[in-house]
């Protein structure tokens, strides 16, 4: 693998997570290197979303360890004993990551510009004037320079998700986690969001993207991860994952998707044309 000379930005070792009696993540090992785009695919219920939520510490993990730039996430050693961090320290770690949600989760009572500046101002302690200036640049970059004074509800789903991406970028994160960023969008709005993500990939942003858009995965991913039932079944470059899948399960998953999504293919073609 390409990045072995450097330390990974994110390192997961044996991550396990249970909801009640159900094992949702069953020993996840994953390294994400600087500038790398890792795309996670897999059937629903395979634990993809839970995995990115665990990384952002919106869920706690039950076993294993996660490191961001070699710093243990969520736990600290005190007098040789491991214990959960204070909420304050967890928040300090969250500030170095950003997440884009399936349902956008913009703050509906705040204007677009305030959605983007609230993190830098309230969480990173930036001066409002600086935060606003930077937010303008970011909103221009996602093509929403003219919507800064709008409320999220006045925007289309695709525009809302692009605001959410600007909000994530405003945190100047080491890594951005995308949790099915286009799953809640109407088909014709998927393209504009994927274009923005693709642009970020080109600029070298480190990202984990959970998605069902296989075509997009193939175009953007440096590495693809196929998950099923809380385990990583196969990891590799997209050419291998989509071209020569090694495991039977991945082959089944891909062929089922191809049968199901005649429509999907059309949508992705349109995206390719843009």
């Amino acid at each position: 693998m390409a990045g072995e000379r450097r330390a990974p930005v994110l390192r997961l070792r044996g991550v396990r997570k249970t909801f009640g009696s159900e094992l949702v993540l069953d020993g996840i090992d994953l390294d994400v290197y600087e500038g790398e785009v890792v795309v996670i695919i897999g059937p629903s219920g395979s634990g993809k979303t839970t995995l990115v939520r665990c990384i952002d510490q919106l869920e706690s993990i039950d076993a294993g360890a996660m490191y961001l730039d070699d710093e243990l996430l969520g736990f600290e050693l005190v007098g040789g004993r491991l214990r959960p961090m204070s909420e304050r320290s967890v928040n300090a770690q969250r500030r170095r990551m950003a997440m884009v949600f399936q349902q956008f989760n913009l703050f509906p009572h705040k204007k677009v510009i305030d959605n983007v500046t609230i993190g830098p101002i309230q969480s990173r302690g930036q001066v409002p004037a600086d935060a606003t200036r930077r937010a303008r640049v970011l909103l221009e970059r996602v093509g929403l320079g003219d919507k800064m004074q709008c409320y999220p509800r006045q925007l289309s789903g695709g525009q809302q998700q692009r605001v959410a991406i600007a909000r994530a970028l405003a945190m100047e994160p080491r890594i951005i986690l995308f949790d099915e960023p286009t799953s809640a969008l109407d088909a014709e709005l998927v393209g504009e969001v994927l274009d923005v993500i693709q642009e970020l990939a080109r600029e070298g942003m480190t990202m984990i993207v959970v998605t069902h858009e296989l075509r997009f995965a193939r175009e953007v991913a440096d590495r693809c991860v196929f998950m099923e039932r809380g385990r990583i079944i196969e990891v590799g470059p997209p050419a291998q994952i989509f071209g020569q899948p090694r495991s039977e399960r991945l082959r089944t998953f891909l062929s089922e998707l191809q049968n199901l999504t005649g429509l999907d293919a059309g949508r992705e073609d349109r995206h390719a044309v843009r």
Partner: protein
Amino acid sequence: MVNRGRRERTGRFSEDVVIDVSTARPPLRVWRLIATAIVLLIVARMLLFLIQTPNFQWDVVAQYLTFPSILHGLLVTIVITISCTALSIFLGTPIALCRLSPVLALRAVGGAYVWLFRGLPALVQIVFWFNLAYLLPRISLGIPFGPVLHSWSTNKVISPFVAALLGLGLTEAAYMSEIIRAGILSVDPGQRDAARSLGLGALKTFFLIIVPQAMRFILPPMGSQLIGLAKSTSLVSVVATSDLLFSVEVIYARTFEVIPLMLVACFWYIVIVSILFLLQVYLERRFSQGRMGARSHGAWWPWGRHRPAVASGIDLG
């Protein structure tokens, strides 16, 4: 009118006529007219009744409307309403948070409070607090099982006003905590995820993200609750607090002008409640930022132009 069609026997228009429904005349709606007439008739009769019945004694009403003792009673009623509102919010919010807490002991305390104080009639509580001295002659402040820091004579602390405040305020706090809890629960959990993901602490998440959104769901029931409270303050007259009702009672006990003095009280209660209503409308406007149509009402008073329900902020999306 040129286009009014030559109708054929079948009821169809011949094809050479251009139809435009904007030229249609609205039909005469007989039942609507009848309903309107009935309403007008009843209203006219009621107005006549109000004016012509001498026993209302409108001159007496006018005379007592701004009588000093009544204005003082009005002031007491307003002060009790405001104090109880403040108490109910400042006590109700932590109780609501207790009930939402992951800590079992806090949940139990919150639940027990709501169960107890919602279960006891406010009137019973007012009388109970007023007579607290029989149970506890002295009230002490100290650490449980530890030293006493200070103690007071109960009779000096619990004035009729304080008894009223406790009886009404503690009851209101129980109801208010449920309203606040409902408001907090109504905010999409994704909002909290997003706030935490940005590294916002618990307090900032609560005050910057949760509260402003919960307010939309809290204000309408809270408005009803406060209007109910403003009227319940009349209960305090049982412990001889000189509120509006009590001041009125003192006068008619002497002059026997019961009906006109009741009308005086009614007038002022309606005034208080109307002010609360306007306040509610104003606050709802304020906290509906970002909701579709919320700003499209031009006027700040409630009797603005008619809008369909969809436009006034009910989110169907």
